[in-house]
Each structure stands twice: as structure tokens, then as C-alpha cells.
């Protein structure tokens, strides 16, 4: 039996005329008809789509029942379209403007019609093939501009939510100045595992730690979430980062020291084997996404994590002298 996610029907936002289906775990189950509308979808309706697929482009259908790459099977669900503009594309694929693509959807736009497509990746060969999860037909120039604004807003919202989710999932949220990366940790022994990992040590100077400060006089738990200074003892620390985050494929360090960054990292105690690897490391990050631009700090809102680091006692004002 296939493992398929629940098919959830979501309503489009205000002014939308259709509903569409989202396969939560299986983005490529074709039989569902992709929603089509002639109106601009709402920001909220686009957000979940951007979480799944990031092929966003404008294209003109040229042939129905055809494919752009002969490797793929043609059917009445496939069509060849000429891409006129690309608004989002995977880094590995790059811009595919002015190329032919294979679209897979039930019910295509008329041949010659210009439409907007949000799709998921399906096949990459000589050309790109996408499965359409949302199509917007017949936008005039003004509507196109509005749609771009909607997309931008949706992207921005999705980004903010992803930053907060990553922050919530971490053990520590800090602002730190990046130090030097220490070269090559050996593979974790024993090698008798499927994926011996390679890590590098990244030195940090902590500037601020995201935490909760109890501002009540009776320690009732009332307080504010904000940035707190580290103790002198914990100001200088180090974390482990995956080798491929620290170094490029030529072995050159790709983390530039001296810059301040927002970091979300895990307690080193979560991985005893890593703890053995570097006794002075206080945490680790699993991917480059955990080292973020400082500007992301503004997106955190009320998000915080329980800090790994001990915080100095804080009082709003010095104790009055007696």
C-alpha cells in the first residue's frame, strides 16, 4: 500500500473562486486537478504552495498531449509550454526563461494563452518538467504586477515562519561574531556506520543570547523575551558545523570570520559522539540554514529557546546603597 498523506482541501483566500487539494506528503500524486483561477490568489493561499514547490513562472502553452523531453511519457495530462518569465527556481536548476518545459496537470490552459504556474519539480533532463499545483490564467499587465506583489508577500511570510520554526526547534538562539574555522576533523570513528560524519569547529564570540528575563520582583515568572548578554566565561565558545558548511569542495573555508550572525544551535549533549569529538564545543548546527543573516533577528517576534548558556543575574537597576 502506498503511504500517502491526507488530501486536505483548503479554501482560497478572499475573492478566490476555487478550492484546491494539497497532498501533504506526496506532492506528485497527479490525479488531483490543479486549481485554476482568473483572479489573483491570496497571500495565505500561496504560502503553503511555496512550502512545497518553488517553480514559479509565466509560460505560454504551445502543445497539449506533448512533452518537451522525449525521455518522458506524453499523455493528455502533459503539455509543452514556452517559459516567458521565471520568478522562482531551484538553485541547482537555474533560470529556465525562454525554454520549453513539460507541464503536468489535468486540464491545460488554451494553446497560446499566457498563464502563471506554481509547480513542483518532477523531472530534469534536457529540459524541466513540473507538476502544476496552481495556475492563474489570463492576467493583464496590472494584474501581473499585483500578482508579483502577492508572491513577494507570500515569500516574505513563508520566510518569517520558517525562521521562527527553526528558532523554536533549536536549543539556543544567539547573535555571535564568527571566528576562525578549525580544519578538518577526521571522520567519526568507527567507520562501521553508514554515514561517518565530518565536522569542523567554528569559534564564536557571543554577543547576545535570546532568553526570557523574569522581571517580576517576586520571581513569579512574569517577564519579557529579549536579548541578554553572556557571562564573561561563556562569551568565547565554539560549535561544530558540518564539514561541507565550513569548507567548500576545494577545501577552502567558506565561513568568513568577523561577521555577526544569528545562529540557532543544538546542545552538544544531544550528540555524545560529537561531544567526544570536540570537548570545548558547546553546541552544533546541522546545516547552513542555522547560520543566518543578522537581519533575521527582527523576524523572531516572541520566539525564544531555553538558553544553553548560563546567564548573569540581571537587575533593572543597581541595588540601592544602604
Amino acid at each position: 500500500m502506498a503511504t500517502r498523506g491526507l488530501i486536505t482541501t483548503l479554501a482560497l483566500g478572499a475573492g478566490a473562486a476555487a478550492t484546491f487539494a494539497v497532498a501533504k506528503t506526496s506532492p506528485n500524486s497527479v490525479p488531483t486537478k490543479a486549481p485554476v483561477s482568473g483572479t489573483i490568489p491570496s497571500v495565505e493561499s500561496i504560502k503553503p504552495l511555496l512550502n512545497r514547490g518553488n517553480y514559479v513562472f509565466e509560460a505560454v502553452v504551445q502543445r497539449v498531449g506533448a512533452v518537451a523531453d522525449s525521455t518522458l511519457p506524453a499523455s493528455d495530462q502533459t503539455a509543452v509550454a514556452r517559459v516567458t518569465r521565471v520568478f522562482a527556481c531551484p538553485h541547482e536548476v537555474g533560470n529556465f526563461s525562454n525554454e520549453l518545459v513539460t507541464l503536468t496537470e489535468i486540464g491545460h490552459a488554451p494553446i497560446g494563452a499566457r498563464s502563471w504556474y506554481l509547480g513542483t519539480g518532477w523531472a530534469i533532463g534536457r529540459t524541466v518538467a513540473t507538476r502544476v499545483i496552481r495556475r492563474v490564467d489570463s492576467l493583464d499587465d496590472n494584474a501581473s504586477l499585483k500578482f508579483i506583489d502577492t508572491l513577494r508577500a507570500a515569500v516574505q511570510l513563508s520566510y518569517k515562519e520558517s525562521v521562527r520554526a527553526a528558532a523554536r526547534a533549536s536549543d539556543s538562539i544567539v547573535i555571535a561574531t564568527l571566528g576562525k574555522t578549525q580544519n578538518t576533523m577526521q571522520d567519526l570513528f568507527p567507520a562501521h556506520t553508514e554515514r561517518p560524519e565530518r565536522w569542523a569547529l567554528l569559534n564564536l564570540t557571543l554577543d547576545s543570547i535570546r532568553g526570557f528575563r523574569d522581571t517580576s520582583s517576586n520571581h513569579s515568572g512574569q517577564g519579557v523575551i529579549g536579548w541578554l548578554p553572556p557571562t564573561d566565561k561563556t562569551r568565547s565558545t565554539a560549535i561544530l558545523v558540518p564539514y561541507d558548511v565550513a569548507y567548500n569542495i576545494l577545501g577552502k573555508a567558506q565561513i568568513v570570520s568577523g561577521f555577526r550572525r544569528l545562529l540557532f544551535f543544538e546542545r552538544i549533549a544531544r550528540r555524545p559522539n560529537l561531544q567526544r569529538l570536540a570537548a570545548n564545543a558547546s553546541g552544533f548546527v546541522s546545516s547552513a540554514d542555522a547560520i543566518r543573516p543578522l537581519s533575521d533577528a527582527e523576524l523572531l517576534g516572541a520566539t525564544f529557546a531555553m538558553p544553553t548558556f548560563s546567564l548573569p543575574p540581571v537587575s533593572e537597576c543597581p541595588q540601592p546603597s544602604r
Partner: protein
Amino acid sequence: MSATQPIAVARLWPTVARVAVPLVLLAIAGADAQVRVIDMIPRRFGNEIFQNAEPTLAVNPVNPAVMAASAYTLGGDICSRAVEAPIFVTRDTGRTWSIVCKILVDSSALLPPGDVMLRWSAHGRFLYATLLWPFNPYTLQIFQTDDPFGPSDFMQVGVFPKVDQPDLAAIPLRPPTVGQAGRAAAGGGDAWGTRLFISGNFMSGDTALGRSSEGTAGVVVIPPQPAKPVPIERRKIAGENYATRLGAHESGVVYALFYSPRPSPNGNFVIEDVVIVRDDSAGISRSPFTALLDTPIVKGTSPKGCDGHDGKPGIQIVTCRVVPYAGGARSFGFQRRVSANLSLAVDPDDPKTVWVAWADSMAKDHYTLHVRRSKDGGRSWSADLVTIQNATNPALAAGNKGNIGFLFQAIEQGPSGMRWVTRLYTSTNGFQSRRSYLLATTDALNPLPVMQPYIGDYAELRAVGDRFYGVFSASNLPDTLNFPNGVAFQRLVDLQRKIPLNEHGGFTIGISIDPFFFAVGPAVHPECAANNRFAARPPMFAMIGRDSTRRGRALEIGCPP
């Protein structure tokens, strides 16, 4: 069509024929090209720089032009924001490859699924896959699809937690014999027309597999469903079996090959036996994989000694071999060494003829590959027919009429440093004589590894008749001298300046490990037929910079003696 058109065509026919016939002949000649090597990363995937190690290959038995392959390839954003991982597919015998997003993973994936194995059903309708996902704990998943090129994901047909190092074999489903009918029918999977064998290192602590608390070699046979693993290691072991390789004959004879660890002194190595077991009933007898029994205990000898016998299922091809467990050291081209370097091939014309290859470190080198053959169903074995030092990733494939191929990757010292050298040996007489195809010779230390395995714990070779198809991973530096039998790149490269290009044709990406496909045809090279002196061509010939290719067809030492 008007009445004049046929006349016009008839008048033009001699001209058409003069042009078309040579073109057709050229096309046929191209189809018979003896060696063809291609970098499988599609052009449209130009910014790809992941370490695409550990490739696997499945050739459709009904239409060998249709193939599927896999290598560590990040779905990244190309596959629905990391919800899926891709496989490679071709419809034209590997001349062009596409990646299709077929393997459902989850968005927390930092790595692609591991140990992907792909095989086609005997009737060519279904493509099966086994893989490890997620990694914590290792979970063996079994999938199938009847549309490898379409947009739908693989359909899951089985899940087994805590399993590592899977292998997969498929044979036609035979009508069960009397006494087995009830059991087979209970599975209800006969409609597939295929019986699957999935081997692995089962680490679940299941008492049925409890030869070791760390992991025991077992095999899952489907149908019947629900399936459960049966142990194939029947001896008490110290440690775990790790990888098991399968070889299956359509008659229902199935072999499994694995390392069997003995108590070993501390160190980064294990003392192991290389053991083969056999099943003659397509895995559905009451005691599967017990057809090969060791010689009974001999009085006055210890059954536990390296020369001892215990009468248990499983023939020890060799005993007490040193097998290292080592990370990716520079001295061995960054590739780790673990108990996974095994290969097994069954002669499609004779299920009693079986070939094995394994790696050990008995000699003073990193790794030595050994190839041996049995003609009596695994009971007795030849001496080494091929021995290769400083090599890994042995892959055997048996074609018809005695054709046997042996693919491996060896560390060799070249004029400019160490190189990973990928070779295919083929023979029709049990390697008494052989042809050697130098498929690639690439810098062993560039690019630097980002994870292990570096080039993979295995490469794969398939045989269809007298043709061999295979996949291996190597540096993608676009230097034609690295591929003496020619190479084609799908991705953008600058062959003059020897640099890979990004999707815009820019120079912003570096070299990386890519999967390469090759096809080796049966045609005898004219030079071989004309003059036997080419057989003495030194192996280094291509590596020192002289291009030994002739329209991409030359051999390295290639001619049979």
C-alpha cells in the same frame, strides 16, 4: 496526398538512398560502439555539486534501452522542497539521462536516502527500489513503480526498522510446488509475477535473527506477504555481518554472500570469513538458504579454527581474512573501507556456476580484491582468478555464453599523483584471458570529500547477453585524458579549459563527484583482429597523456591474447 507525390518521391529515391543509407549505417555503427562513458548529471541540473557517490543501476530485462540508476543526489529544492529524492532514468541505453523525483522522504532531510538499490521485475513492468530512510534509526523501505518516468512517487510495499546495507534481487515468480502452495498463496502477491529477495544487516535484536546483538545477515522474500526476515548467518558471530550481496537465477536458485566476523583483537579491522549460502526453492522452503552445508566436524580438529568445519549451512570460501574498518584516508583516495565490498554473479545459463568477489587486507596494501568461481553451486571454489591490489568496489556481472565482467576501482600512482582508476575486465573463458577497458582515471584527492563514502561502498555492473552496462562515481573534471575510451558530458563543461560550467555557462562551480554510466559492447576492435601486439600495450599508456582513443573506441590493453 496528391497523385504526383509518389512519382516525385520515386524520382528522388536514388538521391534519398545515397544520403539516407550511409546515415543509417552510421547510426548502426554508433549503436555498436564498443565503449561509451557518460556523465549522468543532466545539463539542466548544471549547478549540482553534491558528492554523488555509491551508484546503482537497473537494466530492464525486456527492453535494455530502458534503465534506472541512483547515486547520492540531493533532491534539494528541485524535488518539491526536499520532500522527494530523485533517481536517474534513460530510455536510450544511457545516451541521455534525466532525473525524476520518485522517492518520498521528508523535508528535514539533510542527506539523500542511503544504499538505494534498483531492480526491474523479470517481465520488465515494475521497477523496484530498496533504500534506507530515515537514518535514525536505519529503516529499510521497499518500493515499486510501474511508471519510472512519470510524476508519481514510488509506492511503498514494505518497511523494516533497524536494517542496514540492503541488496535486492528479483526473479520470475514460479508456481509453488506441492506443500508450498498454501504459504505462497497466502501472500497474495502473485499478481506481480515477481519474487523479490531483500538482504540486509538486521539490527532489530529479533530473536529469530539473534546470531549477534549488533546485526545479523538476513533475507526477506516477497511474496508471501506479510514478509519477515529469515536468518542466513547460522553461526555464532562476533560483531555483525554488515553487507550481504545477492545473486539470483530465474530457476529459483538464489545465493547470498557475506562476511562472517570472528572474535578479533582490538583495532580498526575485523577477522572475517567470506561465506556463501544458497537456496534452491526461490526462498519459500521451510529452511531457506540452507542448501549448502559445510563439511561435518572432523574428529580431532576444532570447528572454530580457521581450518575447521562445523557442518552448518554456509560454505566458507575463505576464512580468517583481515578486513579493515577505516575512514577515508588520503592514502586510499579518501574512500573508507568497510565490510561491504562483496559481489556475486550467477551464470544465467547455469545456476550452478557462480562468481564471487570480495576485498580483504591480507597483503600489505590497503585492500585486495579477489575473484573466484564455483561450478558446483558453491560447494567448491577455484583459486583467485583475478587479484587486484589497492582497489575497492568490486562488481561482477555474468552474461550469457560464459561472458563475465568484473568492474573495480583501484588506487594507482600516476605521473601527477594518486588516481582512482576504474576498469572493466571482460572474459569468456573464466579470466584465462581477458580484455581490459580503462573507463576512467581521475585525480584521487580532488575534490575533497564532504562525507563518507567518498566514491561509494560499491559500483554496479549489469550484463545483458554479451553487453555490459555499469555505473561508477568519480571526479567530474572534464579532461578527456581522464577518460581514455571517450566520455560525454550532459552537463555544461569546457573541455578546452577543463572546467565544469554552471547552468549559465559560468565558471562558478568547482569539480565534484558525479555518477558515470558506461556501456561496453561485444564488437572486436579492428586493431585486435589485425595485430596481436596491441595486447602488450602498457596500462599506463592512457594515463601519461597520450590519447589512445580512436573515435572513442580504443582499448587500453584490450585485446585477448
